């Protein structure tokens, strides 16, 4: 606040103490489990289980990570997930820009009707079973495309993208381009796209993290294990607690010992959460901005 010249009153100083205390408590409660898991992934599992490890790794080891990277279905799932993220995000961003731009144009005849058709799907949907039957009908069941095409576009992203175009691309720019003989395709490609860096970044982040974390679509649409994304493999190991030693070529010996199972899980959590957290620096810059554009000015 601007008023640093005014001497803080007694009640303001008490307020500050409570405020910092409260924030510190929030901070520790959120951070501690994350630190614990990260440290446990590098520690001797016996020390973790017996409660000797509380903050920093005890008897550091990389065995957990070795086990993770030699576990066949994890590696396969990781590669599959990378494919779903890349292909899915490309489709998503392409579709979102198309829809977002067209809907941002004031001179689009029937714009309100189109907007309504988009927004209505956020209020009401056919639901799980009818959607599943459609995916089955169009022949996507048990193919890679089942994780990409049925979620090709999120209406929320279309709305923030449309808002972005409305705010940043003035109508005069279009009129000027039209006088120069430019049509809508050329205008979108030559003028709009070069100005859309921030909104493309927001979309990539929203969609990529969504694809990486997605598990339910895979659960219902896929039965072929070679197509499974990482999240389904994680579910097997972390939630259903089934670790299959035959999946690991050279670490079978390790897994025979029950405690190393837990080590594998801690390491797996770190490995699986790393990609979204690596996007985190961008998050501060774009994700938050996108969220704000969409929700406050929407």
């Amino acid at each position, binding site marked *: 606040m601007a*008023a640093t010249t005014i001497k803080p009153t007694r*009640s303001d100083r008490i*307020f500050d103490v409570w*405020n910092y205390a409260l924030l510190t408590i929030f901070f520790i409660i959120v951070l501690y489990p994350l630190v614990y898991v990260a440290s446990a992934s590098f520690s001797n599992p016996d020390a973790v289980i017996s409660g000797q490890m509380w903050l920093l790794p005890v008897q550091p080891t990389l065995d957990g990570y070795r086990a993770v990277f030699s576990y066949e279905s994890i590696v396969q799932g990781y590669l599959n997930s990378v494919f779903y993220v890349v292909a899915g995000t490309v489709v998503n961003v392409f579709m979102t820009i198309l829809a977002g731009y067209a809907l941002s144009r004031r001179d689009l005849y029937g714009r309100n009707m189109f907007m309504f*058709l988009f927004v209505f799907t956020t209020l009401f949907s056919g639901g799980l*079973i009818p959607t599943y039957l459609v995916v089955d009908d169009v022949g996507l069941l048990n193919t890679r495309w089942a994780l990409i095409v049925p979620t090709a576009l999120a209406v929320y992203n279309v709305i923030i993208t449309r808002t972005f175009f409305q705010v940043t691309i003035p109508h005069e720019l279009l009129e000027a381009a039209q006088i120069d003989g430019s049509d809508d395709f050329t205008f979108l490609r030559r003028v709009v796209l070069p100005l859309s860096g921030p909104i493309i970044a927001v979309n990539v982040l929203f969609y990529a993290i969504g694809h990486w974390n997605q598990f339910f679509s895979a659960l219902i649409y896929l039965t072929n294990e070679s197509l499974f994304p990482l999240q389904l493999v994680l579910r097997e190991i972390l939630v259903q607690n089934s670790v299959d030693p035959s999946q690991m070529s050279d670490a079978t010996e390790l897994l025979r010992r029950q405690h190393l199972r837990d080590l594998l899980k801690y390491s797996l959590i770190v490995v699986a959460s790393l990609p979204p957290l690596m996007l985190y620096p961008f*998050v501060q810059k774009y994700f938050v901005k996108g969220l704000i554009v969409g*929700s406050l000015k929407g």
Partner: protein
Amino acid sequence: MTVSPRPAQASDTAAAASARAGSRRTTSAGRQIRRGWQLYVLLLLPMLYLVVFQYWPMYGVQIAFRDYNVVNGILGSEWVGLKHFQRFLDSYLFWPIIRNTIVLSTYQLVAGFPLPILLALALNYVGGAWFRRTVQTVTYAPYFISTVVIVGMLFMLLDPRNGMINLLLSQIGLGPLDFMGNPAYFKHVYVWSGVWQTLGFGAVIYLAALTSIDPTLHEAAIVDGATKLQRMRHIDLPGIAPVAIILLILSLGSMLTLGFEKVLLMQNPLNLQTAEVIDTYVYKVGLASAVPQFSYAAAIGLFRSVVGLILLVAANQVARRSTETSLW
């Protein structure tokens, strides 16, 4: 859907747009369409997607009123009216499922709604940029962890024998608690792990709303000798109230939806009596069972969607009458 934090309040901009469009109706519709044909080409693929994957399922929802079987198709299957709805209402699972759904979603709302506001208000009065940024970054991080990993962490950290939380609890003599096995604990674990994960994310929107409050209000209040607590109460809270109301309406509308994936992952035979909710039951009846009952599951799902829509409209009405802030 992929990440969809909150559908924005698009309808009021649509209304504003229609007002603008009204003044431009000098050109005839036909000419406008012909001049802008390329825009319709751009909309072609997105509309195709909407029709196939959003509106076709809405058409298909009529299987809730039929005895659907794959061979006869939707229209060929016999019309049975409300039979499947009746069956759900008469089912011995109806009340337990409804009760679990309402208990979980109400608890989630009550615990999850105020805390992000509190965090945002507190962060707003932190002088040091470094401390503020650190707290914000850390509390925001769990939002990016996948549901599967979160539930995996819950199973590990809450393990009765060697989970971190239980090791802590035994240290202070509260003994190990079987969090995942005891049906009485399910709602607490579900709700508080959700608060843990989304606290920072939820605060972001309120922080943005706080920055848009006119700073002269604060300056005037300081000159008048208002304490920070008074400024928080009389300037900040009213300032973010519209945003809070919008978010509250939206969360009321999605009350019955819950974090369905998370509930499903947290379920086990021991806690199922308090953990079965409408959506997980639809999944089990319709897709996971050996004999999938598409029509029955679709009916339960439709029941949920309709109740959700009614809740959303009702919440919106109440908000519009009492606070003049609403979605539409």
